[in-house]
């Protein structure tokens, strides 16, 4: 089952193309990171997935064919929107009551267990909490609904490193305990490897990379060699990004694992952060499942 499936999904706001022909199949029971620069269309994609927006073109289904926004989909998806918009004038206890009355299924005990770890008095107003605490309350509320798919829009963007760590720890524990699928967006690319096992890179409304993190790391290598030979070496590789020095050039390229590098070139592994940055810098290179893109789409951008 796929957590999210889109086909030529497009969304326009006026003349702005927020999403432009995205075709994706995001598998279920994975922790999926949706990364890209600000304005890449991440929020739009997530809003389409939870039914807050509807596509201009193309289609999107969730959790094996359900339509976003349908009662079925709404009940099976938990959503934590950007900046965790809770009602600031409600206390935490009232927020829980609100969700209990708003949602069809609700596990008060579970939510309170999550909250009890935070040691925040339940009668405190949400508006009085720190950003990190608000994010934690949002997460606890979302987990209390026992969703099959949890969608989070920039959940840690405004959190300090410690709060970020705590937040991800609770999220990962819930994933381990309940086996839920998680899709979260982020423009922070560090530490991704630690938390996600599937990656989608969105840039200018288009999908640039979509794949299993391990496979992505397997299939990308950094080749380092003399700048004089760079053009020849690049011709035999699917170069994502080239970093040219006076003497040495390093090429981040997509390759088969058994590929032997050109003579005089060293080959080494890459990491997810480098990989994401390389794709975002190149702007046009793509790495998508299914039919390989043609060679001409894979060109180095110096």
């Amino acid at each position: 089952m796929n957590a999210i499936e889109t086909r030529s999904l497009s969304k326009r706001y006026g003349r702005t193309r927020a999403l432009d022909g995205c075709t994706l199949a995001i598998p279920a029971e994975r922790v999926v990171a949706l990364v890209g620069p600000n304005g890449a269309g991440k929020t739009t994609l997530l809003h389409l997935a939870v039914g807050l927006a509807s596509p201009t073109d193309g289609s999107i289904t969730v959790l094996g064919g359900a339509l976003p926004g349908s009662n079925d989909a709404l009940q099976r998806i938990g959503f934590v929107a950007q900046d965790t918009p809770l009602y600031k004038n409600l206390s935490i206890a009232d927020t829980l009551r609100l969700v209990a009355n708003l949602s069809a299924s609700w596990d008060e005990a579970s939510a309170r267990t999550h909250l009890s770890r935070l040691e925040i008095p339940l009668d405190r107003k949400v508006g009085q909490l720190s950003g990190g605490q608000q994010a934690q309350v949002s997460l606890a509320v979302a987990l209390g609904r026992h969703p099959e798919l949890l969608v989070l829009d920039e959940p840690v963007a405004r959190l300090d490193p410690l709060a970020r760590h705590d937040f991800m720890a609770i999220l990962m524990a819930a994933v381990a305990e309940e086996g839920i699928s998680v899709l979260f967006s982020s423009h922070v690319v560090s530490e991704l490897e630690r938390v996600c096992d599937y990656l989608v890179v969105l840039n200018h409304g288009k999908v640039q990379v979509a794949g299993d993190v391990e496979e992505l790391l397997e299939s990308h290598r950094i080749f380092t060699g003399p700048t004089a030979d760079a053009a020849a070496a690049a011709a035999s590789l699917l170069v994502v990004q080239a970093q040219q020095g006076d003497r040495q050039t390093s090429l981040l390229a997509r390759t088969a694992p058994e590929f032997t590098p050109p003579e005089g070139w060293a080959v080494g592994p890459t990491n997810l952060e480098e990989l994401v940055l390389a794709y975002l810098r190149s702007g046009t290179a793509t790495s998508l499942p299914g039919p390989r893109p043609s060679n001409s789409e894979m060109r180095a951008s110096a």
Partner: protein
Amino acid sequence: MSVTTLEFTGRPARRGVLRGLPWVTWRQHRFALGGALLVLGGLGAFLVINGLAMHHAFHRYGLATCGDLFSGACHVQLDLFQQHYRGPAETLPTFLMLLPGLLGLFVGAPLVARELESGTYRFAWTQGRSRVRWIVAKLVILATVLTVLAIGFSLLFTWWYGPWLSIMGRMNPAQAYEVSGIVFAARTLFAFMLGALAGTLIRRTVPAMAATAVLWLAVVLLSMFGLRPLIETPVTHLAATGAARTPLAIEFSNGTASVGTVAPQTAWEVARWTQDASGHHLTSPQITDLLKQANFDPGLPTGGPARAAPVPGSGGPSDTFPTWLTQHGYQLGVSYQPASRFWHFQGVEAAAYVLLALLCGAATIGWIRRRTA
């Protein structure tokens, strides 16, 4: 830091009478509803206190038992009663008629606008219940509560206004008509739905409130002066030529003069005129000419509007000039909407408001269902 949170773990939430979306609606709008109740309650308390005194005076002066209020037997008492209490009975309804707009403004406009403005719609609409159910529940519940409150206030007002029913009636626009009957409640419903729609489309609370105020007032004025006169053709009455004791009226206002006969006290007088033998209505200059011709001085009361009381046989132009007119072949006319038409007018107008309210409600639901973020 308190760790009381642990004690709550596993304990089922308190359950009240309300569950689900009705509870959500109550929890999120109890301050708005409380404010509405406070305003209506405060004004209601004034009506009760003032009304008790007024009703008491009405009985003390013997107006309840002296028979025809406009006969000589009641004349002095009626004057006394009017002197003391007519002011509020005439002016208060003009202010009270704005209440529905205020209720719609403060309860309706923020309903969706605040959620869109603060981004909380992303929370409210993703908790497992569809946003269509969410908005339908909120609209239905709040509209019902506001309408019931408005009907209650209307009933209280009707009681308060009781003594004046037979003295000045409740047909005149911008007066008791607007607060009694069912128009008041229908307008409240319309204001609320209009506010909800404005908030949904404008997406910001304060501009939505301003738009609601302006639009609501425009519709109310339009219905008052545009729609209402069309509901039924006014009754036309021509005073018989030469009739000596016809109630007559002469009015000078900003240098223009009009002369005609008067409508029943409880009716809404639409127009008053003098017509010649062939049925042509006289213009103000023509009347002024006639006044000169009949040797009456038209120049006396000018400036502000002045209406000579229709007192038969008291002498002066209000008695003798119209008599002179009727003797010279002119007829005095009046057109009016009689008090008996009150419920017909109220029914038609209220139906129009309810229809508009339903349209606004449907548009709000449709808009939220189809396009939002």
